[in-house]
C-alpha cells in the first residue's frame, strides 16, 4: 500500500498476479479499480452553466443531459488548475469529477471563481465510493448487476440504474484506461462499498476479472497517453504545450486563461509534449532528462514506463518544438546510460471503437 494524496492505496494486487496481469486483464477482458480517491464537485443553480463556461476550457453549452465532457480548469496564465470530467445532470446541475491530489485547491478554485454567478458549489467528494469497471468485458460484467440497458449508454455518456440493489446509481461510460468501461458512483459507506466491490468481482469471474491498483492505472493511461496532473499537465504547462487543444474551445466566449492562450499561440508554442519509444535496452522513467544525440539536455520525461500490453518501453516528454517531429531520434539519460529513443505518435495505444 502507498500513501496517495492521503489515501491508502494498493499499487498492485500481488495475490491476483500483480501489475502486468492487471494491465492485460483490462486490455483483453475486464479489471476493477477502486477510484474513490477522485473528488466530486457539484455546481448547480440558475447560472451553473455560465459559471462552468467561465472556469473550464471546453464548451459545456454543447452538452446534452446525461453526457460527460473532458475539460480542464485553467489559471489566467493558461496553465492547469486541474483536468476533470463534467457530467451534465440537468440544465442547471453539473457534477465535476476531479483529481485527488488537487481536491482542496480545486474546491477553493471553483468556489472562489463562481461567486459572481447565481449557483451553489458543493464538495461531494466524501459522499461517493467510485468504482471503475474497465475493459472490453466491462459492459458484460456490469450488465449482470444492473437493470439499466448499458448498450444504450454511449462512450462519455451516463445513465442511472439500480446496481447491486442500489437504486438511482450513476453509471458513466468513462474511465482512465484508454479502454471501454464504466465508472459507478455509490454511497461511500464501507459495507455497501465492500459488497458492491465483491459483487463486481463475482460478476466478472467468467471473464477473468482482476482487481487493479494504481500501478496498472498508471501504465494503462500512459499507453493511451492520457494526461496525469503533476506530470503532463501542471500550473507551469499550458494547453497548447500539453496538446489538449482539441478540448479547448477558444470561440465559446471568454473564460479564465483564454487571453493568455491567445497570446501564447500568437507567440508560437516553444515546448511540446511528445511520445517516445526506446529503440534500445533501457526504460525511460518520470523525471529523466531527454538529450539530443550529442548529449545536450533538451527536455524531460513526464511519465515513462514499460508498457505491458505494447511490450515496449515508452515515455511522454516535453521538448522544444523543433525536436518534436515523428521519427526524430533523441536519447533519455537512464541512470548510467543514454538510451536511444525515437519520437512516435501518441496515443501509443488506441482501442478499436467497436462497442458491444
Amino acid at each position: 500500500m502507498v500513501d496517495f494524496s492521503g489515501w491508502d492505496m494498493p499499487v498492485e494486487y500481488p495475490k491476483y498476479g500483480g501489475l502486468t496481469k492487471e494491465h492485460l486483464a483490462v486490455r483483453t477482458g475486464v479489471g476493477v479499480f477502486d477510484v474513490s480517491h477522485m473528488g466530486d464537485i457539484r455546481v448547480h443553480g440558475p447560472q451553473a452553466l455560465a459559471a462552468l463556461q467561465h472556469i473550464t476550457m471546453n464548451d459545456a453549452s454543447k452538452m446534452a443531459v446525461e453526457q460527460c465532457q473532458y475539460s480542464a480548469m485553467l489559471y489566467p496564465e493558461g496553465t492547469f488548475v486541474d483536468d476533470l470530467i463534467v457530467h451534465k445532470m440537468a440544465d442547471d446541475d453539473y457534477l465535476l469529477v476531479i483529481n485527488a491530489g488537487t481536491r482542496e485547491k480545486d474546491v477553493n478554485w471553483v468556489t472562489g471563481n463562481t461567486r459572481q454567478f447565481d449557483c451553489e458549489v458543493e464538495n461531494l467528494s466524501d459522499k461517493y465510493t467510485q468504482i471503475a469497471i474497465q475493459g472490453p468485458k466491462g459492459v458484460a460484467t456490469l450488465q449482470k448487476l444492473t437493470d439499466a440497458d448499458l448498450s444504450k449508454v454511449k462512450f462519455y455518456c451516463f445513465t442511472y440504474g439500480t446496481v447491486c440493489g442500489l437504486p438511482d446509481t450513476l453509471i458513466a461510460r468513462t474511465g482512465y484506461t484508454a479502454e471501454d468501461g464504466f465508472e459507478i458512483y455509490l454511497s461511500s459507506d464501507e459495507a455497501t462499498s465492500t459488497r458492491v466491490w465483491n459483487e463486481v468481482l463475482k460478476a466478472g469471474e467468467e471473464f477473468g476479472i482482476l482487481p487493479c491498483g494504481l500501478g496498472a492505472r498508471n501504465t494503462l493511461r500512459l499507453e493511451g497517453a492520457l494526461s496525469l496532473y503533476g506530470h503532463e499537465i501542471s500550473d507551469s504547462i499550458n494547453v497548447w504545450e500539453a496538446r489538449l487543444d482539441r478540448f479547448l474551445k477558444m470561440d465559446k466566449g471568454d473564460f479564465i486563461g483564454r487571453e493568455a492562450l491567445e497570446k501564447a499561440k500568437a507567440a508560437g508554442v516553444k515546448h511540446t509534449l511528445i511520445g517516445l519509444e526506446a529503440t534500445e535496452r533501457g526504460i525511460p522513467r518520470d523525471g529523466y532528462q531527454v538529450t539530443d544525440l550529442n548529449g545536450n539536455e533538451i527536455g524531460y520525461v513526464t511519465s515513462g514506463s514499460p508498457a505491458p500490453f505494447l511490450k515496449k518501453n515508452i515515455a511522454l516528454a516535453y521538448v522544444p518544438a523543433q525536436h518534436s517531429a515523428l521519427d526524430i531520434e533523441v536519447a533519455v539519460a537512464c541512470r548510467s546510460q543514454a538510451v536511444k529513443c525515437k519520437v512516435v505518435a501518441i496515443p501509443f495505444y488506441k482501442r478499436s471503437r467497436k462497442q458491444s
Partner: protein
Amino acid sequence: MAFPAELKYTKEHEWLKVDGNTGTIGITDHAQNSLGDIVFVELPKVGTEITAGQSFGSVESVKAVSDLYAPISGTVTEVNEVLNTSPEEVNKDAHAAWMIKVTLKDPSEVSKLLSAADYEKFASEEGGH
C-alpha cells in the same frame, strides 16, 4: 518464501553465496516478490571493482527502479548475461538467477552479513508485502 540457510544476506535484500574466494550475488526471493514483474536488470562489466554497501547495478520492475547493493567488496569475474534477455528468471527463482560473481577482496566482510534466520526476521518485520 525461501530463505536458504547456506546464504548470507543484506538488509537491502541481496544474497551472497561464498565458495572459497568467490562470491555469487543475487537478490532475495522476498525482494523479487515485493518488486513484482522484473523487466530489466543492469549489471556491471567483468573487471569492475565493487564496494560493500555501494550500488553495483539496478533491477527494474514495471513500477519502479531499485539499486543493487554489494554485500561485499571485490572484482567482478562473471556476469549472468541470461538476465539481459530474460530478466523474469529472477521472479521464477531468485536464488538460481544469480547476477554477478566476484573475487572477494576482504573475506572478513562476510561475517558482517545477516544469517538466513536474521534476514527472515528482518524481512518479516519490514513486512507490508
